């Protein structure tokens, strides 16, 4: 991803918007007893499009903002989302641009990873109450919702940062010049 000041501003706006929307809207939805984690899907999409560095930095920033907005333990969501963003980015760097199927699988698997990191942080920081098996069900349902929403979220994020994507620029350069404009330059 080619980071110009304009693209950075766009990423900051996208991050703030998705963090607020996640807290006031998506988290309050009830889909099969769970709720969609769209903020995490945006981080996954940015990681897949921009690489591990972009994924980790945007994941950390969006996570930290969510920690602040929810008045939760600072660093909890930040750590979970940066891990997810980094892994998504590493996928891109090792395997290459993902196919549609890969985006769906990444959406599901990395949502599950995010839930696992949050659970690990909670257990690591100490918990007195009993833990229901439904925690696992919630993580699985969230992961399935993540897989379902991965393609539309990826498409929207890609549209927003399209001008900064190296692949898109290469593709545009490869496109043949139309015969009507070929001789006018």
């Amino acid at each position, binding site marked *: 991803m080619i980071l110009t000041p304009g693209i950075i501003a766009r990423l900051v706006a996208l991050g703030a918007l998705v963090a607020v929307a*996640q807290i006031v809207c998506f988290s309050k939805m009830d889909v099969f007893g769970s709720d969609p984690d769209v903020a995490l899907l945006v981080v996954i999409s940015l990681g897949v499009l921009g690489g591990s560095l972009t994924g980790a930095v945007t994941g950390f920033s969006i996570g930290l903002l969510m920690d602040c907005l929810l008045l939760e333990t600072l660093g*909890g969501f*930040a750590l979970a989302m940066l891990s997810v963003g980094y892994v998504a980015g590493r996928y891109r760097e090792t395997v290459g641009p993902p196919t549609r199927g890969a985006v769906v699988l990444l959406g599901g698997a990395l949502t599950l990873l995010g839930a696992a990191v949050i659970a690990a942080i909670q257990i690591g920081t100490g918990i007195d109450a009993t833990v229901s098996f439904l925690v696992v069900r919630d993580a699985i349902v969230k992961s399935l919702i993540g897989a379902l929403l991965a393609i539309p979220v990826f498409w929207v994020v890609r549209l927003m940062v399209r001008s900064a994507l190296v692949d898109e620029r290469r593709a545009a350069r490869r496109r043949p010049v139309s015969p009507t404009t070929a001789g006018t330059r």
Partner: protein
Amino acid sequence: MYRKQVRRRRAVLLLLVAASLTLLSLYYREGNGGPLHGAEKVVSTIFGPIEGGADRALKPVRDLVNWFGETFDARGESDRLRDQVAELRDQLARSQTTKQEAKEIAALDETLSGGIVPDGTDPVTARVIGRSPTVWYSTVTIDEGSSDGVHVDDPVVAPLGLAGKVTQTTPNTAQVTLITDADSAVTARVTSSGATGVVEPDVGNPRDLQLDYLERGTQIAEGQMVVTAGFSTGDLGSIFPPGIPIGEITKATAEEQQAYQRVHLEPFADLRDMSFVKVLTTPSGKGKR
């Protein structure tokens, strides 16, 4: 060139992980008035009005998705529930948001009727504007804060029953920790038998709570109502006033009562889907009643 990129990538990753772990560690160590808590509150204060506006703007989207979910759940349930879903659908079609909100506030008032609210308490109605996206943090954010008289430890009541207590405040928002949160514990009483215990959550299952530490030999049956006990011993007292409905006993086996001194209850309040709550504020804000 490639090695340089790899080194830079690793350095940034290490830096971010170290920053996250440092924040986690420092946040746990410092008190409520520490610099990190302060910085967090500043950010939350800035975003508070934006969250409130976004909550109202995105309500139709949320309602539409929830309507699909409710319709799916209602399939196979009784006619009464089907009628209820149809009624909700009609309401949605006519965009009677205002009427719906008035109903919720009326249910809240009904919950607090009958002399439950102690003297000197001023109930403040607040809109639920945010919710944690994970089952581990059972918290919601409300649009009333310290400037509206909301203090830490103020009890919070939802339509039909107890919701939780205020755990953090900013001038215009507050964080409410629900009774389904891992850190929650509420002293409670079974109304018909008078048996007392502590209501604790079963993390991940918002429809199941546990009434623990019951006296051995008490007779508790399914269907009995559980309310806040609101004990007071000298300077020490529960932050919840007595008599606020919490839930109904759903499972009370003799084996579990004997072995673990525990029964299960379902909360009256629908903690996953509430738009308004009442915060029982006091001028002193000490929370104890």
